């Protein structure tokens, strides 16, 4: 009965779902932007950028996506922003191994190091469009969140006793990986089965709420 009610009101629920995600992203971006402006810490910057791209992606997909003539282009832009957000999130965990902490950039969103993400995301979106599939997006995100899960698990094992949120971060990465796997399954084998999509939406809300919880708890004085 609940399932039927959800299916009957799915458009409304999608908007509500997007509102929750966009709200969470806005809070995370604002809170982390303040910390970044004070510290100029690159990890904080890439983390903030990830949620900025998630937020913009969801705004475009669920609020502008209702315009019937632009659905196709909006899906492409949504895919692009989602892939970029994933890259930023992974890079926020990896940047220390790649670049020096002291080097400065003119812009928070564009620099030579992360330019490669923009190119890679563009290529993924372009090839998916040409092939009429989502194969590359799903594969890239599954690889990306597998790596993020491994790194966050290593962080948790190393410092988990002193820094409690590392455990939740690892859980969030694992849930993201599961969500992307379900997405791929729903798309490739189950013809976008509505039940699977509901589970994915619920997983996404849990993941974003976990991050919101972490940001609010850690930044509280």
């Amino acid at each position, binding site marked *: 009965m609940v399932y039927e009610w959800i299916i009957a009101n799915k458009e409304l629920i999608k908007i509500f779902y997007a509102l929750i995600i966009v709200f969470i992203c806005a809070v995370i971006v604002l809170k982390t932007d303040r910390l970044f402006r004070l510290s100029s*810490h690159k990890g904080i910057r890439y983390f903030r950028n990830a949620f900025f791209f998630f937020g913009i992606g969801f705004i475009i997909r669920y609020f502008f996506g209702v315009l019937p003539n632009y659905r196709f282009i909006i899906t492409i832009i949504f895919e692009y922003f989602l892939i970029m957000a994933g890259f930023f999130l992974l890079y926020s*965990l990896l940047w220390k191994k790649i670049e020096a902490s002291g080097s400065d950039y003119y812009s928070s969103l564009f620099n030579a190091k992360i330019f490669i993400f923009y190119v890679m995301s563009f290529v993924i979106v372009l090839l998916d469009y040409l092939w009429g599939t989502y194969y590359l997006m799903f594969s890239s995100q599954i690889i990306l969140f597998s790596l993020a899960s491994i790194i966050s698990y290593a962080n948790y094992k190393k410092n988990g006793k*002193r820094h409690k949120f590392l455990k939740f971060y690892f859980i969030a990465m694992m849930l993201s990986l599961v969500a992307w796997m379900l997405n791929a399954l729903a798309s490739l084998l189950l013809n976008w089965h509505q039940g699977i999509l509901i589970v994915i939406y619920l997983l996404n809300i849990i993941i974003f709420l976990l991050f919101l919880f972490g940001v609010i708890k*850690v930044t509280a004085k």
Partner: protein
Amino acid sequence: MAKKRERLNVIKDILDAIQKNRQIKPTRLLYASNLSPQMFKDYINELISKKFIRLDIDDKEKKTFSLTKKGNDFLQEYKVIDNFIENFGL
């Protein structure tokens, strides 16, 4: 082997030394910061350009560093920033 100090930690140590003394001469700050002269110069230039500290020169050409409001804000928020970086593995 001693662990290399993180950039954020060095900045915090410099700002801490200035805050404790209110105004501090460059040579004393160099000793307090425990950095090489070149590294010290780089950090000081960065902190001045980011308006965390200011260089005051009096009538006798005596130079001292003092904290700006932004520098004070950073010190107050340092624990939050450090906690954030550690808890999110950044």
